[in-house]
C-alpha cells in the first residue's frame, strides 16, 4: 500500500471487559493494520461522558479516513449509549458542514452482533446506522451483521477460530476491499451472518448455560421469579 490511511475504532460496548463487540472489532482493525492502516481506538461509552473527551473524539473522527463501530444489539436496536454517541456526533458533524469547515466525509462501517442465532435480528439497527451515517456526512460502507454472539463470549476470534472461521474470512474480505478502495463484496455480508453452529444446538446450549450460571450464583430456583407482579 502506498498511502497511509487512518481508521478510528469506536468500541461501543457498555461492558468493561470480555466484550464480544470489541473482540470482533479488534480483529477487523488488526486486519486493516496488517494492510498499512493507522488505527486509534476510542471507547464510545467513555467518550460521551465529558465535553473534553467528546471534543477529542470529534477531532479524531473528522480527520479519519474510516470510522468503524462495533456494538451489541440491545432490544432490536442500538444500545442507548451508542444512540447518545450518534446524537452528539451528528450535531457536531452538522455544525461542521454548516460552517463549511470541512467537506471531508470519512467512511463508516458498522459491525453488529446479537445473542440470537439469527443475524437478521440486527437489520433494523443496521438501517439506523445507515441513516445516521448519511445524515452525519459519512460515506456509508455497509454493516456486518453477526448472530450467536454468545459463541464468541468476549474471547478473541483467534481463540474461536474453529467456529468463527467464516466471520474471520468476512473481516479479511472487508479489510481487503476497503484497502483497495473497492465496495465490500456482497458475499462478505453473507459470510459474516453465517451461524457458528446449528441454531437448535445454540438455543439448547444457551438455555443450559443460563441454568448453570444461575446455579453458580445460588439462584437456580428463583430464575423464573416475578418480582413486580403476581401475574
Amino acid at each position, binding site marked *: 500500500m502506498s498511502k497511509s490511511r487512518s481508521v478510528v475504532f469506536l468500541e461501543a460496548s*457498555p461492558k468493561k471487559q470480555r466484550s464480544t463487540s470489541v473482540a470482533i472489532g479488534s480483529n477487523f482493525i488488526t486486519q486493516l493494520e496488517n494492510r498499512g492502516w493507522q488505527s486509534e481506538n476510542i471507547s464510545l461509552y467513555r467518550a460521551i461522558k465529558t465535553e473534553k473527551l467528546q471534543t477529542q473524539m470529534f477531532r479524531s473522527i473528522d480527520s479519519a479516513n474510516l470510522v468503524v463501530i462495533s456494538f451489541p444489539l440491545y*432490544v432490536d436496536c*442500538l444500545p442507548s449509549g451508542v444512540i447518545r454517541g*450518534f446524537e452528539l456526533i451528528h450535531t457536531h458533524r452538522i455544525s461542521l458542514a454548516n460552517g463549511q469547515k470541512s467537506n471531508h466525509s470519512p467512511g463508516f462501517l458498522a459491525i453488529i452482533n446479537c445473542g*440470537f442465532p439469527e443475524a437478521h435480528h440486527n437489520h433494523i439497527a443496521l438501517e*439506523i*446506522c445507515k*441513516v445516521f451515517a448519511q445524515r452525519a456526512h459519512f460515506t456509508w460502507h455497509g454493516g456486518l451483521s453477526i448472530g450467536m454472539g454468545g459463541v464468541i463470549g468476549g474471547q478473541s476470534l483467534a481463540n474461536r477460530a474453529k467456529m468463527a472461521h467464516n466471520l474471520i474470512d468476512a473481516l479479511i474480505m472487508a479489510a481487503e476491499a476497503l484497502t483497495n478502495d473497492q465496495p465490500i463484496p456482497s458475499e462478505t455480508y453473507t459470510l459474516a451472518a453465517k451461524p457458528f453452529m446449528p441454531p437448535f444446538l445454540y438455543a439448547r446450549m444457551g438455555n443450559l448455560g443460563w441454568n448453570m450460571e444461575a446455579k453458580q450464583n445460588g439462584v437456580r430456583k428463583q430464575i423464573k*421469579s416475578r418480582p413486580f407482579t403476581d*401475574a
Partner: protein
Amino acid sequence: MNPYFLICRRGFLMCENTMKILILDGSDSENSAVEVLFDQVVQQIESFGEKFDLQIIHLKELEEQLVYCQGCFGCWVETPGKCKYVDAAQDIAKETINADIVIYFTPITFGGYSALLKKALDRNICLLLPYFKKVQGEIHHKKRYKKYPALIGIGYQDQDSHEEAEIFASLLARNAINMWAPYSQTFCFPLHAGKQEILANFQQMLSQSEGH
C-alpha cells in the same frame, strides 16, 4: 370521534377494570411543538374518563439517576427479574409490566428511539426470561410474566422522512414481538407544521386508526 383510538381494534373496550396507561416520555427538547403534541396525547387519554389510569414518566427528569444497561445479564442469573443496579429503572420496569398499554413518546432519531427513551427500555430486559424459544420461525426470549402491555409508539420528526418513519414502525413491531405485546401501533408526526396543523394531523391520525 371515538376517543378509544389506542385500543378499539383488539377488544380492550370490553375490559371492565380500569385500564392502566403508561407514557414513557423520551423527549428532551423544549420545543413548543413537542409540548403541543404531548398535551394532545394526554388530553385524548384523559378524555377517556375514569376508566383509564394514566401515569407519565418524564425520562428527562430521571436521566441522571439511570445508568446504562451494562449487558451483564445479572437481571437473569444473579437477581432474577430485577436489575442488580438499584435506580429508577426498577420502578420503570415495575410500572411497565403492570400497565395495559405503554406509550413510547420520542423524537424519531435516525429512525429509532431517542437515547433517553432507549436508556429506560434497555433496562427492561429483566421482564423477560433468559431462555430461548422459537416464535414465528425465529428465536426470542420466553415470557417471564403472563401478561404484557400493548405498545404504542408516538414519534415526531423535525423534517419529513418517510424512510425514518418506516424504520420507526418496523422497530416498534419488532419490539412488540420480543416484548410479547398483544398489540402495537405507531404514529409519526412532523413538527415543522404549526400548532393548528399538528392538531389536525393528530385528529386525522386517530380517525385513520379507528378505521382499521
